[in-house]
């Protein structure tokens, strides 16, 4: 499912428009007119919330068994994947989720449960987006800048239009000029620029005037058209951009490791859905325990992701080769039966000679993993000497010989500091934090944050009307 969101300027929780639908398909759009009015806002968001919640539950419904050792889990066969234009949209959805996940009743009326559920889902997606290599929510700016080499600086890579233009600038136009132009013209959101909201202002003011305080759909809906048109026009190019970007990435062969990573995604997805359907509530602030475990989990996911990328894609290995964190060459000698004394007794420790094309610098004792056995025992650098134009490195396996541990003689082989086996998944920490980690005030229980919703929306003020508009950043 693709999602495009436009906020009202400066209003972190107010989606002026949300568009959603199948990527490269038609999209639905929800427009509140005056998103700062709770009733109008929730009424407008309802269809989106319902579609999202339904899609999530549907995706989680059909399960497959996965057996690991003694235990068997039922993972979703799939996960609902959200595709958005950029990382800031992920953040915006997270905030929206935070808002909707816990809503207070108003005059005895409890809010639409779909809103609350959708809120929980959005929060989950936003949190999960921190996991390196995850694919449940895909901010295309990150995806494209990981996949494509462009002239753009890291900061500029946050602009999907610029990235797209660099990748396909169009015949006769230079990539630089294409992206510069795209940057000028394209509006991607979620935060609107001045020119957009100058228009929005007039529309919203007119809308508020016409509805004369009414929130009755019968009255309001007909009045929404100009605003919907305004945002439809803003969403369309972004929607097209998303479709184009996705279809470009599509149709390329998968890397072997993708399945594994997506399995952890599905696992997380399943856990989330179960938790929510059991009426579970997420803390809005991590406990020390959650934070500690999250930290370790993310760090492991990261090193695994980096290792898998580099090992599966030669182009990704190059930086490691350049930084002497990896060496590549031809295996010119292999002594399987070499023995060495470990502690007291002599044990088998195969020796290998690798001739590299480039002179390399490696300290003896440095541990390297053969890329074909990066989950297994490392090799240790014994010596590195100049040889021909390059170097000759002698490596010793840190365990006994086994076929799948030894590269072929006279074959090319790459050894790097990258390994794909993480040092065992960290054990679940004690649920009761030790006294040292108990704040005097325990972390706040999830609370509704919509207390101030009733306030009447502020009048828009044009930059030219105030002495120092910058003062309100």
């Amino acid at each position, binding site marked *: 499912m693709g999602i495009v969101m436009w906020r009202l300027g400066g209003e972190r929780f107010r989606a002026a428009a949300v568009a959603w639908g199948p990527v490269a398909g038609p999209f639905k759009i929800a427009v509140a007119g005056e998103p700062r009015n709770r009733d109008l806002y929730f009424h407008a968001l309802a269809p989106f919330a319902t579609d999202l919640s339904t899609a999530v539950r549907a995706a989680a419904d059909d399960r497959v068994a996965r057996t690991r050792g003694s235990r068997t889990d039922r993972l979703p066969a799939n996960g609902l994947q959200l595709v958005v234009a950029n990382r800031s949209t992920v953040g915006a959805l997270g905030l929206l989720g935070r808002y909707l996940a816990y809503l207070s009743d108003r005059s005895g009326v409890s809010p639409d449960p779909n809103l609350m559920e959708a809120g929980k889902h959005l929060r989950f997606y936003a949190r999960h987006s921190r996991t390196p290599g995850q694919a449940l929510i895909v901010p295309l700016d990150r995806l494209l800048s990981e996949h494509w080499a462009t002239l753009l600086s890291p900061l500029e890579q946050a602009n999907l239009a610029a990235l797209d233009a660099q990748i396909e600038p169009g015949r006769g136009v*230079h990539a630089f000029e294409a992206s510069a132009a795209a940057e000028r013209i394209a509006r991607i959101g979620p935060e609107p620029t001045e020119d957009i909201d100058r228009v929005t202002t007039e529309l919203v003011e007119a809308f508020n005037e016409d509805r004369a305080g009414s929130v009755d759909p019968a009255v309001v809906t007909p009045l929404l058209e100009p605003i919907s048109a305004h945002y439809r026009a803003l969403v369309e190019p972004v929607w097209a951009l998303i479709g184009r970007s996705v279809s470009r990435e*599509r149709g390329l062969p998968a890397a072997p490791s993708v399945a594994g990573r997506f399995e952890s995604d599905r696992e997380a997805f399943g856990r989330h859905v179960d938790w929510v359907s059991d009426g579970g509530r997420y803390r809005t602030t991590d406990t020390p325990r959650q934070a500690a475990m999250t930290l370790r989990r993310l760090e492991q996911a990261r090193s695994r992701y980096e290792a898998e990328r580099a090992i599966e894609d030669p*182009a990704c290995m190059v930086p490691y080769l350049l*930084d002497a964190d990896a060496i590549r060459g031809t295996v010119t000698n292999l002594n399987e039966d070499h023995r060495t004394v470990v502690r007291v007794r002599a044990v088998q420790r195969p020796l290998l000679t690798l001739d590299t094309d480039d002179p390399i610098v490696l300290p003896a004792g440095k541990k390297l993993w053969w890329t074909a056995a990066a989950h297994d025992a490392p090799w240790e650098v014994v010596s590195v000497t100049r040889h021909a134009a390059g170097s000759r490195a002698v490596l010793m396996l840190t365990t006994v010989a086994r076929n799948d541990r030894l590269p072929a003689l006279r074959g090319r082989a790459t050894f790097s500091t990258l390994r794909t086996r993480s040092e065992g998944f960290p054990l679940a920490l004690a649920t009761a934090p030790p006294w040292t980690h108990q704040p005097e005030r325990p972390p706040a229980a999830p609370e509704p944050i919509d207390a101030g919703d009733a306030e009447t929306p502020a009048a828009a003020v044009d930059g030219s009307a105030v002495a120092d508009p910058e003062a309100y950043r």
Partner: protein
Amino acid sequence: MSRKRPPSAELLTKELAKAVAAKDTARAIELTRQIESQLQSDLKETNGASRDRGSGASSGERPSFAAAPAVVPVHWTARSAGSARQTITAALSEIGVPAKARLVADYAEARFGDRVDTRGFSALRRDERRAWASSSPRPTYIVPALEGRFFQPIRGLLALSDWPIERRLMGPWSERTDHLAATAQMARQLAWLSERDRAVAVGLASVVAGMARSVPGALDGPHVDTARVEAAVEAELAEFEELDKPWRSESAARARKQLSPEEQLWGRQVKVVGAGES
């Protein structure tokens, strides 16, 4: 871990940028393919996308990578590309040693086709001096080479501010040493270019010829044999460096002791030169 590794995308960026800047179609295609292969490290989006996409999966949308960005010949942005400062900086860093304005201009014209008006050089020197922001080692400025006794700026002998001071000091053997070093470098450059860009090579050849003229055995008849030039030049260069190096490092040591950071770049304005000295 005490080193932050740049993502491989940045290395490819460099590569692609090089190709783009060099208007090199061949290289650019290579790179685009490399980049394409990098895509393989991820199909997950594809899975997801296809799951989303419903029925109409138009794989026909996929662009042919041969038509990808860098492949298109660059039409160079004119703005300030021709600026004297930029052309001279580029030329100097390729020559690598202090050089006379004339030579820099000739080299630049042969290499980049940018004609630099040497009459503008004095203005340029004033601008550079003015622009120099002591609070930052950036950007690179065009500075005068310094005479190595009293460290006064030598008019019309250009160097770059990010060169170590040794290289910017001139002593009794330095001028010849630098001339030889420059000639050797240009000869190598010519050799390399002659297989790639005929037109440029031809232009550069005459510059090299002009420089090699003073080197015994470097030239033989009208056409330039880069190997021959290089050999002849290197031979003489070896002798000169032996004399020049110690002198320069000694002088550099004094300069760094006596001169402020500013003076180390722009030279010291000495009013009177002792008669006994020079």
